[in-house]
């Protein structure tokens, strides 16, 4: 078992910063630093070499999307550096930007999800391990759009459920648990989905997630 996962927390609201610090440290994470601006975040990453950063989108001084820019910059400096973005709302546009470098270790969740402690902690750990955690709302936004691809319409309702869970970043075991089916059934669904969408089959969970997200996110 590796050492404790260290986290840099970037959140400007004291109430939420303290709450997240408490939540993560009681669940076995080590808080390397808790800061409130983009530049301080980049400094903390250089100083502490954390395993993952949890970043609020909106930060001072502009209170726009500074957190997102800082996260992209951090990943530019340290390719693949795991970042979990938290926001009061999710925007497909931002998800696309986060995913554009094609590397794993990306999360984008609504702040509401913090309420489900177990799932949230799992998501932080998954991102720290190089996996993906996309908010179900991002996925449902993408799937709700009348698709430019007829292939999506060929999926059965069950296959669509599985596709949404893959896109969120769940493992086969987690998908099986969530849908109350066997992992073998999950594998079969996934094989069908990849076949219908014309995606190359892959056993690497993370590569699979990125392929699905890239597929869903593309416009053409």
């Amino acid at each position, binding site marked *: 078992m590796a050492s404790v996962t260290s986290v840099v927390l970037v959140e400007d609201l004291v109430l939420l910063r303290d709450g997240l610090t408490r939540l993560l440290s009681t669940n076995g994470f080590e808080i390397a630093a808790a800061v409130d601006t983009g530049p301080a975040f980049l400094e903390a990453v250089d100083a502490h070499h954390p395993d993952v950063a949890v970043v609020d989108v909106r930060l001072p001084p502009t209170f*726009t*999307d500074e957190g997102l820019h800082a996260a992209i910059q951090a990943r530019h400096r340290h390719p693949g550096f795991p970042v979990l973005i938290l926001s009061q709302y999710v925007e*497909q*546009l931002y998800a696309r930007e986060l995913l554009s470098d094609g590397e794993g270790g990306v999360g984008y969740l609504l702040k509401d999800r913090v309420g489900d402690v177990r799932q949230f902690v799992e998501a932080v750990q998954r991102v720290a391990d190089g996996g993906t955690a996309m908010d179900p709302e991002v996925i449902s936004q993408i799937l709700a*759009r009348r698709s430019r691809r007829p292939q999506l319409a060929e999926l059965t309702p069950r296959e669509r459920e599985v596709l949404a869970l893959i896109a969120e970043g769940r493992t086969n075991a987690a998908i099986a648990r969530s849908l109350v089916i066997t992992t073998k059934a999950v594998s079969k669904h996934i094989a069908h989905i990849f076949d219908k969408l014309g995606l190359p089959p892959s056993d690497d969970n993370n590569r699979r997630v990125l392929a699905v997200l890239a597929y869903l996110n593309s416009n053409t």
Partner: protein
Amino acid sequence: MSIVPTHPLSKRRPASGGRRVAGRRTWAAVRCAGGLLAGGFIALAAIPLLVLGLGTLVISPLGDLGAPFLAVTTWLVRPLARAERLRVRVITGVPVAEAYRPLRGSLAARVRTLLSDIGTWRDLGWLLVQVVAGGVGLAFLAAAVVGPLFMAAVPAQFLRGAGDGKVLELLPLGAFFAAVGWSGCSPVAKALAALSGQMLEPDETARLRAQMEHLAETRDETVDARAAELRRIERDLHDGAQARLVSLTMSLGMAEEEFDRDPGAARQLVVEARASARAALSELRHLVRGIHPPVLTERGLGGAVEALALASAVPVEVDVALDERLPAPLESALYFVIAEAMANIARHSEAGWAFVRLWPEPGKLRLIVHDDGHGGADPARGSGLRGIGSRLAAFDGKFTLSSPVGGPTELFAELPWPQ
């Protein structure tokens, strides 16, 4: 040789160009002749009104009969003046503003407004000018038409032996009329139109007054819309997030009581509390999007419209050609106009494709929202289109909707943008 294919083309060009110039000249002649003719008709219609107006001016001191009579006369002048404004605009290309004071209230009040409006008296002055100018125009036109007829008729008469040598002397006269008539037609038509345009153009006070009335009207609309918006937000908060938070507090309070007695029940209450909190957050998120979408704050109009397009059920191409952020109120108004247009496309058009284009031009911003749906959208129906109108009106902007049955539908908006 390589130049061979281009040779015929280069030869053909001047010929077709020449034809085009000739075509343009003919068209210009027809247009100015039509303009003079129309001006003459308007002058003919102006004569009885002028007589009526001057007549009532003479009898008006005699008693109560004068004022209403004069009012009716001047009221009849207005449609004629409107026709003349249109004619002047067609001929000179310069629009002539109309700035009468709005007629409201009782009949007596209307009559009073009508008679105290400086535009009414300018119109009477215009009648006089129009009668003269229209007559001059008709005379000119007559020369232009009669001259050539003369030229054709005289030799014919001469050949038949009906006239003597003297008839031939009239030939240069005909040629002179024809030449003056046709070459002078366009400038004369323009000069006469400009003259009557000047008479009809409202003076500064009238224009300012009309502008003020317009501003007051759009301000009222904006204030009303703002108030309605606040009422909606208040109601949404009251029935939504606030109610959820109350229920959350209740669940937590009951859980506190139950902890010692029945931990299982307490846990259930905490789960319910969390569900309430989650629902409240989701409702607040919805509400915030409706007030001012965060992505608009963060990315400006271009990014926000792109986000809208990504979430749209219909594929939408976005081209927002702005180098800088617009002022926040304008940004927000345009965002909601585009959002409304895109929602209409998704809801009604059955379009397979749409595009949004926003670009600056000197002094204004232009917006087009186009879809390839089945068309037939009626701007008179639907509060959404009314909302678009009032949002734009707050910035002196306006929009038109073109939606023939069978499509495509195109919303075209324009607003002043001093840049």
